[in-house]
């Protein structure tokens, strides 16, 4: 990739202040046409803030942005789009009930005499999407397509409306491997068309696969801009964390564990999950592997009573439990950190402190409020123990970054001193630093004798901490791996096998 002399977009000295915090401190970002530029940093490093300053969602407090040599200061995302800066977010920002074509042209529909020209729009949409390697029916509602396709539609919309700079904010966070390749194909085409593309992600391997250059942020400052061919992943991670990260994921696999704590026997629900049997010992981690929609989340949901199972039993220390509601599971000292932090985890407008306290207080009942001093003690304890970075525990939790929200949710459950901790994608969408900390925490909890059931799509992670991995496919248990047989390749093999490759019964 030759380096053009003049960047397409050049942001210099960008600063942004929030009450009591400097979010961005004189940040520089140079985007060249035809380059994919990774924006990297831990949660809270300032990536989102920088993007919002570029797209007009925030007004910057200082600095200049030049686009094509012109000074620009978009006051809204619409203005930024008109200038040529388009953005696609992690959660697809489209209207699922409208058709693909309507989404593509929303706000600038082709009309004649004030009436929408539906047929012409569909034809145009089809042509546009074919440019992106998608041959789908644009007259179908958007929801009839996978998230990946929706993501590509979102990209197409952003590019059609803007066409100079495309900002992709974690576009691959909820996609599986093949879907990521679909999106990457689109990115490569756009790169060839000369767009400057910003790619924000937590997946380092994806960065090295698709990006040409990276700007690394830490604590609101740029700590480096690197040409990716010239660096190793470790160098990037070191820059992001500001410290040498020893062995990223320590593989100290758990031993056999102690007594059998929880047994599932044929736990299932029609249309949701076929009966699953497994057992979890105190002091061991059981991993749940499988693709999205394989039944991992469903198993966690049933075990926690968030949805009542219609078959099977769950026993804890040999005693059968009735799990019809989350309250039943909590009474049995189960805890669940759900996959979708925003809708099922955080209570956005409550303070970090109240969020940490919530489960403990709910279990105690409203009549017995946890005394103020004790609340502060608990919150402070977990703030320090889990390194939750918040300017104040009194600020609404929605103002924290994803990784810190996740830590606060872990704190919420650890405060209830659970025997079984169920984690559904505990490291999704959080940065490398928090990621390593959460893995270390999992190790520590296991050593303290807690039983953990962890669903994750990060195979290396599962391999690192699980003493047993249960593999699910199409809402069915298709295998289990133990001991030295737990390797990423074996897990992939079990997931991909047409018939259960090792139709071994899971030890109960």
């Amino acid at each position: 990739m030759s380096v053009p002399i003049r960047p397409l977009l050049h942001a210099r000295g960008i600063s942004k202040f929030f009450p009591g915090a400097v979010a961005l401190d004189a940040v520089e970002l140079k985007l060249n046409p035809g380059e994919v530029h990774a924006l990297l940093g831990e949660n809270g490093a300032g990536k989102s803030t920088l993007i919002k300053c570029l797209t007009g969602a925030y007004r910057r407090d200082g600095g200049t942005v030049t686009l094509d040599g012109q000074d620009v200061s978009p006051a809204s995302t619409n203005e930024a789009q008109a200038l040529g800066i388009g953005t696609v977010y992690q959660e697809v920002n489209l209207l699922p009930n409208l058709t693909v074509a309507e989404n593509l042209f929303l706000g600038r529909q082709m009309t004649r005499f004030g009436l929408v020209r539906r047929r012409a729009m569909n034809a145009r949409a089809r042509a546009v999407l074919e440019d992106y390697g998608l041959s789908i029916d644009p007259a179908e509602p958007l929801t009839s397509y996978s998230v990946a396709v929706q993501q590509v539609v979102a990209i197409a919309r952003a590019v059609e409306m803007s066409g100079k700079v495309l900002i992709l904010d974690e576009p691959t966070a909820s996609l599986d491997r093949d879907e990521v390749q679909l999106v990457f194909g689109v990115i490569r085409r756009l790169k060839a068309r000369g767009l400057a593309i910003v790619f924000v992600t937590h997946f380092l391997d994806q960065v090295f696969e698709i990006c040409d250059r990276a700007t690394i942020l830490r604590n609101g400052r740029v700590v480096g801009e690197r040409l990716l061919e010239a660096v190793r992943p470790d160098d990037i991670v070191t820059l992001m964390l500001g410290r040498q990260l020893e062995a990223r994921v320590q593989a100290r696999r758990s031993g056999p564990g102690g007594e059998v704590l929880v047994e599932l026997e044929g736990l299932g629900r029609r249309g949701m999950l076929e009966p699953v049997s497994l057992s979890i010992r105190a002091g061991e981690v059981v991993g749940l592997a499988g693709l999205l929609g394989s039944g991992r989340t469903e198993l966690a949901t049933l075990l926690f009573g968030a949805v009542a199972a219609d078959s099977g039993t769950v026993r804890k220390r040999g005693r059968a439990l009735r799990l019809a509601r989350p309250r039943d599971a909590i009474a049995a000292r189960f805890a669940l950190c759900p996959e979708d932090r925003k809708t099922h985890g955080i209570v956005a407008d409550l303070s970090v402190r109240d969020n940490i306290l919530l489960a403990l207080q709910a279990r105690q009942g409203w009549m017995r409020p946890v005394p103020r001093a004790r609340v502060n003690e608990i919150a402070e304890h977990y703030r320090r123990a889990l390194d939750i970075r918040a300017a104040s525990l009194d600020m609404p939790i929605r103002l924290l970054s994803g990784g810190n929200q996740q830590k606060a949710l872990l704190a919420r459950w650890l405060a209830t001193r659970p025997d079984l901790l169920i984690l559904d994608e505990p490291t999704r969408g959080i940065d490398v630093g928090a990621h390593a900390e959460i893995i270390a925490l999992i190790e520590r909890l296991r050593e303290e004798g807690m039983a953990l059931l962890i669903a994750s799509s990060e195979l290396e992670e599962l391999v690192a901490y699980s003493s047993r991995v249960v593999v699910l496919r199409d809402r069915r248990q298709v295998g289990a791996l133990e001991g030295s047989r737990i390797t990423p390749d074996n897990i992939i093999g079990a997931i991909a096998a047409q018939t259960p490759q090792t139709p071994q019964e899971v030890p109960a």
Partner: protein
Amino acid sequence: MISQTTPSVFKRVLPQLVILAVVLACNLAVFPGFFALSVHDGRVFGNLVDVLNRGAPVALLCIGMTLVIATRGIDLSVGAVMAIAGAVAASVLAGGQGWGTALLGALAAGLLCGLWNGVLVAVLRIQPIVATLVLMVAGRGIAQLITEGTILTFLDPGMIRLGAGTVLGLPTPIWIWIGLGALVITVVRRSALGMLIEAIGINEAASRLAGINSRVLLICVYGVTGFCAALAGVIVAADIKGADANNAGLWLELDAILAVVIGGNSLLGGRFSILASLLGALIIQSVNAFILLSGLPPEFNLIIKAVLILAILVIQSPKVGHALYMLRAGGLPLGGRTKARSPLTSKEEKAQ
């Protein structure tokens, strides 16, 4: 858990205090004797006392309404529940029972109405606005059945004292709403109830997963609202010495919702302040007093009220607040690029 300390409470209700002061100042302007108080026969008389006294029904209603709205709900039936409670009280008295029995009967009826709403909302998962609409429509019919279509009057001195009596120099209704308000605020903030209610209003799915018994809590909140409405209904009936099924509490549900909104509580649920709602109720009553005292023809009343309330809400709008801030900071409110920054507006926060 006490999630609020004294200074932050003051900060929270400051806008309502300022608006109340302005409305009272307007009253003083059209009627110089507005603040005058006098004492006859051990009872304090004056316009301020009237505001506190006449504001009692809406103040009582808005205590429960604040809680319901905090759970992301609404209760349209409170006016009708007032009518039912009044009718029950009057018919119990007509049956020869004492005022204590009548009061208990009325409160029980209100509680029952509230629990009914709660079951529709929390168990059957009917949207609150529709669920409570049922009782809003049916309630007056029930009240008419109880009074058999007439205005059922009574002369029981004990009951009448609840609406028109005097305790320690002030009308009884004032003590009732201040007492209930203080009680509910204390219970809600000294226990964990306030936080749990807020959690449900902000994110019910997450709250349920955290182990909050949202179903029971919702039913209780609607129950409290029914109870408050019954107390308001008893006071209104006692004041006119009779139960008027058609007119008791008519449209008061809207005043109660308005009081909650003027109190700065979001209809989308979440953080709430009962104290601010009570100030909202007093603001509404002061506006009513202003209309009476201004001497304008009565046909203007509703229009003037609407205009005043619109003005209050516009002043509270975050957009206007932002624009005023920008003006004060010497910049242009829109489009201008100024160095002055507004405090994080709610819109910006939402974008996070």
